[in-house]
């Protein structure tokens, strides 16, 4: 419990000094760049002893063990024994309609085109896109739902997700999520960073900082993007930014076409040996600059150069699907051969997971169905259904699902009333933050359950609301962290992913 308080900047600086000295010698001549250890009480103790001696000068408390990850970044390490070692986060960007996928409301079928009751809407703010509408006609889902056997009384899913039904026993469905934001940018920012305003580290960056890399050849936090079929919203790089955390913790985006990572390849005429010599020299220069300025960003730069050097070897092997057998490829569906498709990215996610990458985030764009929802949703759900079910099955049979959390979530939900024209074949839905559905599987999350209830209109939560901080705190718990202790001091405050809220929801834990 020595590290009860989040890091203090002064201590950080001393540590950096110490770490440079320690790794400065180890770095030379090792392909790895840094000889590094992720061990409490081993290197941690050494560092602690060294920095503790310096700490005495400032009257700072003796430093606790401070583990270092596989690539030499200082991390916090888990607070207790984790159930999950990594996360695959399927972000459904644009907010999928819970009413047409997960939240089964058969009663609405006999309320077709009725006005949304005032007592239900209850003065809820609306977006600029429907605030001018004179009527709010109830639009029941036109999709049939089925109940799949899970570990409770069954999981309801719409006909758009038949494959997902086959993993119902693994899924922890939360129908009572709610959020604060009503528009995409703040909504995604809130879901990724715990705050609506930009500037905080994303979940993946926190995990890179907390867990570190388990594979020195790959970044701890990898992001992949699938272009959707439907209406797409902007996707900012900062959604996977590291905020005030050292910048080596930001997400590394793998591209689907051409080079998976830009500028990774050596230019024509530069051999790997040349590259090594160049990196050694640049490293020495950077070292000198660091000794002068103590700017931690110099270190980030050094470690990222080294990471890139190793990724020159590891990425081509990672992205080559030729070692996958036919049956596995078929399981992910025909799109798996199309680079950048959700299917291909799901397979890549599994490959990254088995290689020790800690946080793999897939963005699936195009869920923003303000109009023409049934048609667009059919295509969107069709693109994700088989791959996401295959991902879970594939992880499971390889023994990876026990310690991998798969999370599927959008930034908010969609309204029960139609935006624009309502017919029995077509309608649209506006943004709805008061309730929506997300699900998780594996990694210590309670499998095969449905949690939380909404009212008959899927408009308000009537049972067991779960807010974003609560979900984050619960996921962090599975990963071995007390969300109140995983912090970093910035702007005079100990910042957390869960900001000032959140608690661990025991019902969601296995």
């Amino acid at each position: 419990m020595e590290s009860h308080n989040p890091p203090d900047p002064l201590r950080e600086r001393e540590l950096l000094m110490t770490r440079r000295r320690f790794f400065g010698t180890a770095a030379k001549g090792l392909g790895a760049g840094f000889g590094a250890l992720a061990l409490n009480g081993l290197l941690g103790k050494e560092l602690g002893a060294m920095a503790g001696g310096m700490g005495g000068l400032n009257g700072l408390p003796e430093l606790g063990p401070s583990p270092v990850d596989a690539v030499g970044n200082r991390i916090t390490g888990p607070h207790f024994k984790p159930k999950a070692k990594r996360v695959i986060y399927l972000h459904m960007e644009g907010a999928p309609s819970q009413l047409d996928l997960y939240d089964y409301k058969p009663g609405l079928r006999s309320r077709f085109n009725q006005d949304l009751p005032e007592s239900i809407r209850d003065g809820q703010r609306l977006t600029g896109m429907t605030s001018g509408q004179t009527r709010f006609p109830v639009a029941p889902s036109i999709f049939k739902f089925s109940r799949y056997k899970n570990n409770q009384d069954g999981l309801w899913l719409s006909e758009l997700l038949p494959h997902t039904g086959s993993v119902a026993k693994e899924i922890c469905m939360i129908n009572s999520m709610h959020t604060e934001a009503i528009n995409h940018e703040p909504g995604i920012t809130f879901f990724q960073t715990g705050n609506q305003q930009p500037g905080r580290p994303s979940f993946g960056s926190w995990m890179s900082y907390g867990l570190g890399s388990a594979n020195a050849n790959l970044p701890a936090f990898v992001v992949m993007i699938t272009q959707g079929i439907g209406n797409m919203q902007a996707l900012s790089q900062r959604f996977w930014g590291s905020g005030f955390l050292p910048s080596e913790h930001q997400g590394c985006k793998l591209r689907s076409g051409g080079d998976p990572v830009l500028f990774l390849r050596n230019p024509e005429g530069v051999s790997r040996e040349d590259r090594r010599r160049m990196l050694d020299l640049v490293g020495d220069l950077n070292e000198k600059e660091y000794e002068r300025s103590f700017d931690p960003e110099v270190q980030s730069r050094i470690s990222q150069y080294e990471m890139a050097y190793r990724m020159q070897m590891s990425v081509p092997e990672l992205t080559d699907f030729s070692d996958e057998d036919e049956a596995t490829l078929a399981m992910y569906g025909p799109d798996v051969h199309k680079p950048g498709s959700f299917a291909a990215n799901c397979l890549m996610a599994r490959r990254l997971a088995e290689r020790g990458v800690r946080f793999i985030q897939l963005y699936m764009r195009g869920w923003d169905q303000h109009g023409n929802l049934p048609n667009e949703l059919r295509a969107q759900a069709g693109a994700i259904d088989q791959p996401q079910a295959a991902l879970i099955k594939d992880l499971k049979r390889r023994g990876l699902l026990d310690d991998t959390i798969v999370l599927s979530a959008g930034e908010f939900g969609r309204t029960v009333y139609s935006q624009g024209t309502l017919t029995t074949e077509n309608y649209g839905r506006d943004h709805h933050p008061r309730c929506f559905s997300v699900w998780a599987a594996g990694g210590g999350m309670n499998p095969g359950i449905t949690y939380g209830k909404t009212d008959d209109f899927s408009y308000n939560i009537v049972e067991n609301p779960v807010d974003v901080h609560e979900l984050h705190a619960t996921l962090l718990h599975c990963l071995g962290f007390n969300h109140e202790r995983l912090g970093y001091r910035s702007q005079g405050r100990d910042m957390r992913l869960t900001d000032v809220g959140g608690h661990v929801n025991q019902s969601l834990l296995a």
Partner: protein
Amino acid sequence: MDFFADLFAVFGRSHPLLLHMPIGMLVGLGFVELIAVKRGHQPMARLYVFIAACTAVFAAASGLVLHEEPGYESSSVLEWHEWLGIATAAFACVCFAMRLVGAIKFYRIFLLLSVVVMIPAGHFGAEMTHGKGFLWEPFETSDEPEYVPPVLPKIPGNEVDPESEDPSDPVDSTDLTNASDPENGDKPTAENDQPQIPEPILASYEEHIAPMFAARCNKCHGERKSKGDLRMDSADAILAGGENGEIIVFGMGIDHPEGAVVIEESEIYQRLLLPLDDDDHMPPESKTQLTNSEIEFLRLWLEAGAPFEEPFELGAGKQVPPPTVKDPPKPDKPKPNPEEATSAANQATAVTPAVAPTEAAPQEALLALTNALIHVQPVEPGSTMLWVDFAAPAATIDDAQAHALLQPLQGHIGELSLARTKITDASLSQIAAMPALTRLDLRNTAITNTGLAELQGHQVLQQLVLSQTQVTDEAAATLQSLPSLHRLWVWDAKMTADGLAALRNSLPHVHIDAGDLSNPEVLETEGDLVFNGDAPLVDGPADGEAAPAVADVASLTPINTVCPVSGKPVDPKYSVVYEGRVIGFCCPNCPKTFWENPEACLAKLPK
């Protein structure tokens, strides 16, 4: 009067401040006089000597006041400190008197005396605050191993949730009888197929509880300090309790059996469970807290009646009901569904806890691993057991490399992943000799039955991943010999359907995943969907009249066919309602332009 009493107490507490003044002044004066003697200078001014004597008196007086505060039990160290301090002050006063009357020789003698007496006084004082032997500690090569918090062995049903909000949650102890003995960890069980008779795992006050108190409690509740009049460094002292009474409450035979510890009333345990910011929480917020495992140790000790001499059982609680198996395996019928085995598996497995080695893993061996880009991390914070994962360099790792890297860490490896490496059966004999190994991942390697057979009888192995290996039906014998096994993956191995069924049949308590996830089990599907507005309105019309007309679907059809912003044809899905009229646009961006200045666009719309 209270104010003056408080002021008095403050005076006492300024002892740590005041005591430094005479040290500085008297020692300084000593040096001055030394030089003065040597060079024949005049002695120091009287005023300085007066101030030095005063500070010595104040320091001694404040020390005496501080002694009155609770928590400073008399001890030889304290007494020595006290008398030497008083002596210092006395000599300093005499020294000043001699200076005053001009008896310079005596003045210097008494100065020397006061300094000589002050040095041990200071030393004893430091021993009180910093602990005995503080000064020479750096020279001491400690024979005692550093305190490592005990880790509770895993016993089914007795697992401590490391982060449960309230550690006082009663721990389910239904399955405790299944705990087996860790001692015969490396004894192969080939000859004794009989289920082992479970033996309790023992712990003792001497070995587990006393070191914990020594590390976590005795700094404040020990020989030196006894805050709250409580000492926890001996059995008698613990039983005696402190100023708030006994800290371990024993039953009187009325509500609780005589001699049994009433844990709910025993502050030795309950104070640990208070919220961290509670004033009564122990250890205080700023001090090192007990781990949940330590708390659990303490609870088990108390539950056993707080024995100071005899050992107590970890995992033998108050009552030990027979284990209940929800779904007893039927030997003649294969299990139809592997999923259902899980619940039974959790109930019936006899898991031998892996014993963590007491000393930390050798550092050079860990460095060698990380230099080879192999991930290594404690299985949990503070544990000496390691999770070792060869993921990064997997493609280049062969038997020789794996052997060289793992050899020095044999006893420390708790979880090992060699997935996707080039190892062969040759590596398995080494792996089989890892006594603490609980999870082994051999996925996608060339392992065959021959190699697997090396694992025969491994006592603590719980999880085994054999997916994508060459293992066949013949491996069943080895798998059946693993007493702790409860999770097994054999997807894409070389097993036949019959062999798999037989294996499942013979290992009913093991959850076996062969990748054969059952097809979706649809319990029901909606029939044809009928859409109407027949349901009664929620907010209901006041006078019970029929629901208002809602069938006006056309009301949300745009009034225009051409987008007023771009002039392109309207797509009805992008429409907004403005002043009761539905206005269509061509794309999602045009409505934004529209809202910026609606009036400008209205002119372009049909009336």
